[in-house]
């Protein structure tokens, strides 16, 4: 049986969380996890716990800010939003990712094409 669901590449979770927050605006951890699952369309294994550890890191770097608020079900939840520094970082990392994935893609092309 072939494994159809992929592990998240090391270091890319930060990028994906930043992008999600940029697109969706302030979100709580559960919301981020749901969103990533939606976008991954079931092809991505997202350990929801690691999202919270990733958020701790991003808050420490001041790329993301956190604030307590009320969820749609009127529950107390912590909402995260991208800061200006986070946006700059996201842009830089996106460019970097595209460059690398392009290179990796070109390297892999001949094999997959044959």
């Amino acid at each position, binding site marked *: 049986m072939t494994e159809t669901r992929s592990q998240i590449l090391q270091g890319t979770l930060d990028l994906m969380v930043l992008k999600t927050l940029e697109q969706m605006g302030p979100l*709580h*951890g*559960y919301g981020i996890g749901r969103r990533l699952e939606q976008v991954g369309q079931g092809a991505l294994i997202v*350990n*929801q*716990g*690691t999202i*919270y*550890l990733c958020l*701790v*890191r991003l*808050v*420490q*770097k*001041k*790329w993301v800010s956190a604030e307590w608020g009320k*969820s749609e*079900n009127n*529950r*107390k*939840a*912590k909402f995260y939003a991208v800061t200006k*520094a986070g946006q700059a*970082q996201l842009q830089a990392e996106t460019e970097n990712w595209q460059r690398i994935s392009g290179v990796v893609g070109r390297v892999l092309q001949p094999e997959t094409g044959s």
Partner: protein
Amino acid sequence: MRALVHTILARIAGFLHLGKQDREFHLELEAHLAMAEEEKVRQGMTPEQARRSARLDLGGLTQLQEAGREARGLPWLDTFWLDIKLGIRKLRQSWGLTLVGGLAMTIAIAIGVVVFMVFELAYGGSLPLDEGDRIVAIQTWNERAQRLHDTALQDLERWRTTVQSLQDIGAFHTIERNLVIGNGPFSSVSRSRLAEPVSLAQMTASGFRLARTSPLLGRTLSATDEIPGAAPVVVLGYDVWQSRFSADPKVLGQIIHFGGAPHTVVGVMPEGFAFPVNHRFWIPLRTDRGTLAGPQELAVFARLAPGATLESAEAELAALGLLPSPTVTPELMEQLRPILKPYALALTGDTDRWLVRLILVLVTLLLIPPCANIAILVYARIVMRQEEFAARYALGASRGRIVGQLFVEMLVLAGGAASLALLVVGLALRWAERNLVSDLSAGAPFWMDFTLSLRAVLFAAGLAVVAAAIAGLVPAIKATGRQMQTGLHALGNRTGMRLGATWTALVVAQVALSLAALPAAVEIGWGTVRKGVLGPGFPSEEYLTAKLAMDGNLLEATEGTRSVAASSEPASTALANTALANREHPPSLSTADRFAGRQIELVRRLNAEPGVLGVTVGVLPGDEPWERIEVGPAPPVQQSRQDAQLLRRSLVQKNQVDLAFFNVFEIPLLTGRHFEASDFETAISEVGDLDAESTSAIVNQTFVKQLLGSGNPLGRRFRYLPSDRRQESTAQQALTWYEIVGVVIDRPGNATHGTVYHPAEAGQMSAPSLSLRIGTDPIAMTSRLREIVTTLDPNLRIKDILTLDEIYRQKAAGNNIGAFSLGAVTLSVLLLSAAGIYALMSFTINQRRREIGIRSALGAQPHRLLGSIFKRAVGQIAVGTTIGILVALVLNYLLPAEKVGGWSVPGVIPAATAVMILVGLVAAVGPARRGLRIDPNEELRNS
């Protein structure tokens, strides 16, 4: 980079608020689970299923919280803290190692901190004045001789008018004078007006501008005060104003006398002001040539002008050069150049920076012997704790983690030792400031801070880390290296590791060193404290002593330079230098005559006082200068051929005494005769020179024992050698031979070395001291003595009035500290070797438990069993002891105790051997008892 900084700051904040953040993280995860459950229930799961699924999706809650804590706080600090707690527990368990190792480390670190503080005090940076780091001293340096040369007045004058990169250039020198407060004739002074010797700064007015300190009352000195003929004025220090004038605001305008010279008080300086060194009285320094002719020990100060640096200012001075002086030969002139130094550095002496660093490195190296010793003990303990480490290793602890924990354990010990060392040094510094520095006539310079500096604390911390690295890291790395090889195999297998040949050699060396050092330490220690313990051997509390000096009149131009205290020298050497200055620049004949006359009159008046049993003038006991002498051959009748060639040389103490000396101190004659009146008279009449001495001399019995041997000492001759060895051959012909006319018994203070007494009349001694034998209360006599001196001559200065008993006590206090330090070092060496023996025995027992068990199960007698097991260890101790005895004997032969300030103690080597064997036995008792308690059944079961 910014993100990294933010992360570090956030982690520190997280560490500080770990509890709050833990709670928030928990709440957040709870909210997550609730939201997930709700959604899953909406999707059709039962609440139970939903809860399970939500938890599965999130991952383990506890692990997640643990990971969150690690991500938020400072995990290594947590580990560190855990290691510290563990270290404290382990150190408490092995309290023997803690005590012995801690003591040894404390001593080594304390020695290091003391050396560091000495440098800190001597070279400690800037003055506590406004922009104090820009205050400098200008000195004249002799390039060839590599020493300072007197600065010429003419150069000072030129610098003051021409140098651009320096401002407020000025100079000072310190003089001592009798202070008498108030007006009126000196012949009828009241007790409140007794003369008291004080130090004055003769300083240019620019000194106050340079210090940027305003007076509390009145004014400071001004340029007009320096003009010849100006009314003499004085500025007072705060403490003087408080103590002598009861803080009277109307002090301005009052008259005080220095010697016989009246001065008007014009100002009072604020509390703490003591520029230039530690002064409380300031009078103007007149720099015109008429006033200050002749050699001057001037200290020149200045402030760097805005924009100028030490280098640029020195370059300007160098370009200017020095003016040719009529008193300096052109050849010498070529070797002289002006130099500029930070003020404090220039005044407290100067040593190359690299030398200071080298000494600090050497001090750090002092840590190696005790720490290496502790390292051995730690290694033995690690070997014994190997099961614990093997288990931890098996459970996944890395080697680094185990090494780290052992390092932290030693760091706890070293940290404790460093704290204790700092406490001890801090107290010692306070004691030194109170007792040693206040004894000096001048006191410590105002910028010296006798509290432990932050740098000293950091230095101690650094030493603690080095100590922990040697004592903990090295054995841990070595032991865990083997651990890796033996791995789990070591678990439960006590024979997995061995103490190798290095260990054996070290224990043998340790025992040998302790035994070799013990007799020497006992003899030197006893030699040091002996005088204090046994007392002087005569009723020293009945003797009142005081130093005498004669000042020229402050207002007499040509006499202004006399008895100048060496103000450019460190305060600690000021006293010694005063004597030196007196020798090099003898007072002019008229003052010397007056001084001699006053001494004779003073002795006459004191002898007439009721309660005075005797008066003598001489060098204060214990202050006698050391001189090198050469003893002439014995007369032909007695000598063997070998002796005739032998001229013995030695250091002796030279005393100058008057006719009454031996009587007053009750020193009995052993052979020959005492000095007679003719000895004093011939000296003066025959030679016709006041400074010439009689050729008669009396020596003590140790002189005879050490230098003359068994023959008749009377009539033997000796001569003084020049202090500079290079002049020895050229000057030999001109040296005077002195003849021994009598031998007296040793006084307790000179029982270890030769002492020579020469007859000296009043006025012939360079630094005379008065000794009174009194039957009455010394305190009452003190003020009476002051009164007599003040009425006799206001320029006759009497200071340091103390009973001989007090002088001996002060000296004993210093000696006791030395002996105490020596005792502490010896004790720690002894304890370390005891700990080494203990560890060796314990280890042997531990390693051979099974063998002991089996053999005792087979019926071996426990005591014989122990004997065979300890055979090797006892053998090692025996070898160490034998080597130690041999080294002690050789040491004693090469360096007898008397030569190094000790006192030979009969039977000290056998006694030390006995102590060492006792220490070894005591150290072996514990392990031996443990060995006897081994249960054969249990050991057989375990094997």
